[in-house]
């Protein structure tokens, strides 16, 4: 009970400290919120990309677009000789064109589409081998297969990750500096009180606690702001984004997993860590008792 009451007093002291900090509260929370929003945004983009890539990875299909003048059936028979091939489906240019015209109501042009073969490999590991062999055929103009796209997305994702974490690190450093300065100023203005408390036998935990908790409160508050911003972005962007992703990869489920809760948890954790860490370090440095 005693400890609980002491802890409760520390929280009250923290509230008083925040009240005394005035406008610098807003400065700290704004900067930290910006840093966390960027961090959380990047985290979500990369996590979504990972999910998309994972969905691509489970696709066994290679699409081959044939040059004009080759018989799709003959090419299909040739391809089905490849040991790793399980199934070959033919979509002639006429069928594809009819389908397209009925869905998109395009004007009657000359059919621009190639004959297409959809080739199913026997296992995910075989996809690359099948793609390589099919590509060598003289009848094949071009091929497309999800793993190829997946690799490109992955490269892009790595770039975003590196850039994003560099930005987050820089912003965190800036935030640490701002938090450190704010707490330092507060400590300076209360130096005499701190000395008095120490002479009265108030424990260092009780003296430093409010400063550390104030930093943690900045972290939590900033994370809350950043999370609200991201939720807002999701509400506006999700319908559009889902359409885009599904058109890019038709096999994706419609309820795409953006990793919201994990991201928000990590943001909150990072915010509190940076806030409490910055102020703990500052209190340790400037409160000599």
């Amino acid at each position: 009970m005693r400890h609980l009451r002491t802890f409760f007093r520390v929280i009250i002291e923290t509230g008083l400290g925040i009240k005394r900090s005035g406008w610098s509260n807003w400065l700290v929370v704004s900067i930290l919120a910006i840093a966390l929003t960027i961090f959380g945004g990047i985290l979500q983009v990369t996590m979504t990309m990972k999910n998309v890539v994972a969905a691509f990875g489970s696709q066994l299909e290679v699409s081959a677009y044939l040059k004009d003048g080759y018989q799709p059936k003959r090419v299909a028979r040739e391809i089905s000789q490849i040991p790793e091939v399980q199934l070959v489906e033919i979509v002639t240019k006429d069928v594809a064109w009819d389908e397209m015209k009925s869905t998109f109501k395009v004007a009657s042009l000359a059919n621009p589409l190639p004959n297409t073969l959809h080739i199913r490999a026997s296992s995910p590991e075989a996809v690359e081998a099948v793609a390589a062999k099919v590509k060598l055929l003289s009848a094949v103009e071009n091929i497309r297969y999800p793993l190829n796209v997946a690799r490109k997305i992955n490269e892009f994702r790595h770039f975003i990750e590196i850039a994003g974490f560099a930005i987050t690190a820089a912003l965190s450093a800036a935030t640490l500096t701002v938090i450190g300065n704010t707490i330092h100023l507060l400590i300076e203005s209360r130096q005499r009180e701190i000395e008095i408390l120490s002479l009265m036998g108030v424990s260092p935990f009780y003296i430093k606690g409010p400063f550390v908790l104030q930093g943690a409160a900045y972290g939590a508050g900033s994370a809350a702001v950043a999370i609200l911003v991201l939720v807002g972005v999701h509400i506006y962007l999700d319908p559009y984004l889902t359409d885009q992703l599904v058109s890019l990869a038709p096999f994706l489920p419609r309820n795409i997993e953006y990793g919201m809760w994990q991201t928000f948890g990590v943001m909150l954790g990072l915010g509190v860590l940076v806030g409490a860490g910055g102020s703990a370090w500052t209190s340790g440095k400037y409160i000599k008792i």
Partner: protein
Amino acid sequence: MIRLQNVTKDYGGRPALVNVNLHIALGEFAFLVGPSGAGKSTLMRLLYREETPTSGSVFVGGVNLNRLHKRQVPLLRRRLGTIFQDYKLLPRQTVFNNVAYILRALGVEEKEVAKRVQSALSVVSLEHKADAYPDELSGGEQQRVGIARAIVNGPPVLLADEPTGNLDPATSLEIVQLLERIAERGTTVFISTHDTNIVNTLRRRVIYLKGGEIVSDVDSGVYELEPNLNV
């Protein structure tokens, strides 16, 4: 209650205390006198562990302060009531909250806090100023708040370093008489001062410090500016 054994304190120049031996028993009332720079504040600071001796040992309540871990210092200070020349009140807190602070920090129940603060304020006759802020009080009243704060946790020892240094003679006398009344309840009271008037009015034990050395230690003593060392 308080014991110094061969204590020397050296800040780097001329030592502030030289081979001091001193014993103050439980419940005793004593003055530490001497001219400015004699080492009175240094001796007091050793007792509340704001300083450590260069050599020798300091005991308070049987505890060897040399062996006290940094983390135990708050525990020591809670068992000591300390009173300062500049009062050291928290300026942004009311009288009540100044006195209540340590109790709340220790997690004492609010009902109990109120009871103990009222009782401490009544000892110093300041119940009616509970809601005032320090800067609304006279020097003597501020020092009484300092005393209330020092006694609120019921310490066995009260240390006062020049408690009347900023007060007029009449108020000074009131303050030391208040401390004397507190001592009558069994608290050990140790006051440093260079105010001859209060020492000579009370006629209690007088420990004379000069150039860092104890040059006389007399029960029911007086304080003359040039002491007769044969008294």
